[in-house]
């Protein structure tokens, strides 16, 4: 069994999810007694060596002009071409904007079965099964792929990677042949929310809800976020009210996150909010209503008023982390 992990890059370096894809591929290789390789684009050989720390030994660069800033159709043709050349049966993508669109296209090309947003992969007899949250996280489905070829996208921050290896990565080039569907779409520009950590990628998230009473009080959330070194998140109620941008919304119609620590302040914990954050590894809730549903998923609950709790919490966290509170 050979596994191919797609390693996403940004501005010439691997993203954190690249190491998570390696981790997942390595995990599948251990379950099946197989081996794994990486495929990437937009990064030079020197920077690829970083992946050796996570146990990657073989990596292919997908070399084609259309892949410098890849669109899904082009990337799918390149990755499936490489999977065929290297006889890889399993392909792993991060469940990111790019990965989520490319993976199903690869599945069609390889005639593979696919599971999206996987949080665990296990062995069941001779088969692999994947676990994924369904119905807004209210249930967990174990899914078996009946086809021999398999494609998985993995939820960010679940297959947490540790740099425990010192492998040297052997890098080869793969020049895919792309047809005209691949070149019909061009990425013409990317605007990043500058200077801000994105909730989809942050290790720690501090989120605020209607309990903050108004946009002018969100400095309390921003200061606590700076003390933690965290991203700022929000409930839909405050996004719909125009207090915060949609990019910060966590939940079913916002982003799905699983950070190490999620701090929910003045958020009731409606199912649609929980859908986006209940797989966080540690959850702190600050709410003055001890019956708020958010406490049912909280590991640490503070029953209290955000206006009293947050300034003190911010001060103590900042003391512990050494992070400054001011912008």
């Amino acid at each position: 069994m050979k596994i191919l992990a797609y390693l996403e890059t940004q501005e010439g370096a691997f993203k954190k999810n690249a190491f998570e894809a390696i981790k997942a591929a390595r995990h599948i290789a251990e379950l099946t007694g197989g081996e794994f390789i990486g495929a990437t684009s937009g990064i030079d050989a020197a920077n690829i060596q970083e992946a050796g720390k996570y146990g990657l030994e073989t990596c292919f660069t997908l070399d084609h002009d259309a892949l410098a800033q890849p669109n899904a159709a082009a990337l799918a043709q390149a990755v499936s071409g490489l999977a065929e050349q290297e006889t890889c049966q399993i392909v792993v993508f991060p469940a990111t904007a790019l990965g989520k669109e490319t993976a199903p296209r690869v599945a069609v090309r390889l005639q593979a079965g696919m599971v999206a947003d996987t949080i665990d992969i296990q062995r069941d007899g001779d088969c692999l099964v994947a676990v994924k949250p369904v119905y807004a996280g209210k249930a967990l489905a174990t899914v078996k792929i009946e086809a021999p070829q398999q494609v998985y996208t993995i939820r960010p921050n679940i297959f947490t990677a540790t740099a425990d290896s010192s492998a040297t990565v052997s890098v080869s080039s793969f020049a895919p042949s792309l047809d005209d569907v691949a070149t019909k779409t061009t990425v013409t520009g990317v605007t990043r929310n500058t200077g801000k950590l994105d909730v989809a990628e942050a290790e720690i998230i501090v989120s605020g809800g209607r309990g903050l009473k108004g946009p002018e009080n969100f400095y309390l959330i921003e200061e606590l976020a700076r003390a933690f070194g965290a991203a700022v998140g929000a409930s839909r109620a405050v996004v719909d009210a125009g207090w915060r941008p949609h990019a910060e919304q966590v939940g079913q119609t916002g982003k799905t996150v699983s950070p190490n620590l999620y701090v929910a302040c003045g958020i009731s914990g409606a199912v649609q909010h929980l859908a986006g954050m209940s797989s966080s590894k540690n959850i702190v809730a600050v709410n003055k209503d001890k019956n708020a549903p958010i406490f049912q998923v909280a590991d640490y609950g503070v029953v209290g008023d955000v206006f009293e709790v947050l300034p003190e919490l911010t001060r103590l966290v900042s003391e512990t982390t050494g992070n400054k509170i001011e912008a």
Partner: protein
Amino acid sequence: MNILVGISRVPDTATKVAIDESGTAISAKGVKYIVNPYDEYAIEEALQLKQKHGGTVTAVTVADDGGKETLRSALAMGVDKAILVKDEQGLDSFGIAATLSELAGQDYDLVLLGRQSIDFDSFQMAGLLGELLGRPSLTVVSKLEIDGQTVKAERDIEGGKESVTSSLPCVISVQKGINDPRYPKLPDIIKAKKKPIEERAAQNLPARVTVTRMEMPPAKSGGVVLGDTADDIKELVRLLREDAKVI
């Protein structure tokens, strides 16, 4: 421009979930079904594009008989035509995509979808259909402009937005924020009840994926509950440092 809008029928988000006897699905008892919330944005976008460019809007769902109710909502919003592809077997995503691609391959310039179905959050249909049809796909689109054959879109990516250009025919999935879906008025809802729904049979396709187990997520037990005194907050920070080891 002829547009096909794919609609998926999903349990209302407020539904309480229970596992049925088979242990591989949720119990259908007491579940209220709705139009997948993202698909309302797709219907609205299709109607607005029609207004600008002319053409027709067709809504399709691959579902059991209950899909008629879903299509009535689309008709009430104003789509021209509704097709139920009757699926008795419970097709997986690939089977649905294969079924839809047969239809979409005929004379539609654009297939509009929601960014994901909120039941299984599969997030696959746009990519599957794009590849099956040999067409470009653009997903999580929050801004769309079509001029002749040229498509300009803005899509949400991690930490920002991506601008892309592509061309018709293509498959596009839309995101909240692209528009404000209209609420059908009562007369429209009544009229929709009398409009015809075309029925077709789904293909029989072997499943590529099957659910072998459905379970409730492990309950969080024994969360620590603290008050709001200075000591409580000090204790919280200690727990985050020493127990959770997150700071």
